């Protein structure tokens, strides 16, 4: 195993790239994919710490995060499909039905 700083740096880099994706992309499907990237970065962090402390609870939590990410992706994509059926767009700027 490498010293843990390397894993933390990798996790931070993936998290920040995902954060950039969430904030700056207009295509809402790419935003969802960036959210998945953020969750993965957190997983790397958890599993690295689980390895260094020898406690498998970090991996248990990572498993829950994977299950939760699956549920969230499913619901998010269902919402996107339902919205696309109505308004024919996937760009977040054009999803402004609640704007005054």
């Amino acid at each position: 195993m490498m010293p843990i700083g390397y894993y933390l740096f990798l996790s931070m880099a993936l998290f920040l790239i995902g954060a950039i994706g969430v904030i700056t992309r207009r295509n809402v499907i790419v935003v969802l994919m960036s959210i998945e990237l953020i969750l993965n970065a957190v997983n790397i962090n958890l599993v690295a710490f689980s390895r260094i402390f020898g406690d498998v609870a970090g991996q248990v939590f990572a498993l829950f995060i994977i299950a939760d990410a699956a549920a969230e992706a499913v619901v998010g994509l269902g919402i996107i499909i339902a919205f696309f059926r109505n308004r024919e767009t996937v760009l977040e700027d054009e999803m402004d039905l609640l704007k005054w």
Partner: protein
Amino acid sequence: MLDKVIFFFFAGVAILSAGLMVTRRNAIHSAVFLITTLLATAGIFLQLRAEFIFIAQIILYVGGIMVLFVFVIMLVRLDVALHQIQFSRQKWVALLVTLALAAEVGVMLWSSRNVPGQGFLLPNAVPAGKLPPNTEALAGRLFDAYLLPFEIASVLLLVAMVGAVVMAKKRT
């Protein structure tokens, strides 16, 4: 030495694919690069000797969630979105804030690198030969101390499944 090579290979692939993913114009290309990022992350898990999380990542994330994403991208018409501006108006502010955050974390990691016992760049782990078998250890904790979160997670997945089916059904 082998450990280092494997780590840098998978870490490099992960960061490169992630960068490519958030910048592609075509959403299918983004999905493909997210698949490579997830596979590289699975490689990192395997390098950390977390074998069950490695295979759970491959089966659930890559084999399940990404198939779902690719299906939805196919159902949504790409060609309109392909010719629009891809980035919103906040892109420079976002990039600046992200780089500032990265610099902050980097400085913190670097300045604490040699603190004895807690330094982030000091090797500090149980050697790999002494680890208990991963699946058995995970199962022992999951069904013993974390049984309630496990059951709640299964109810969550059921709710998500029913909700998605209800939302995606055509109104007749």
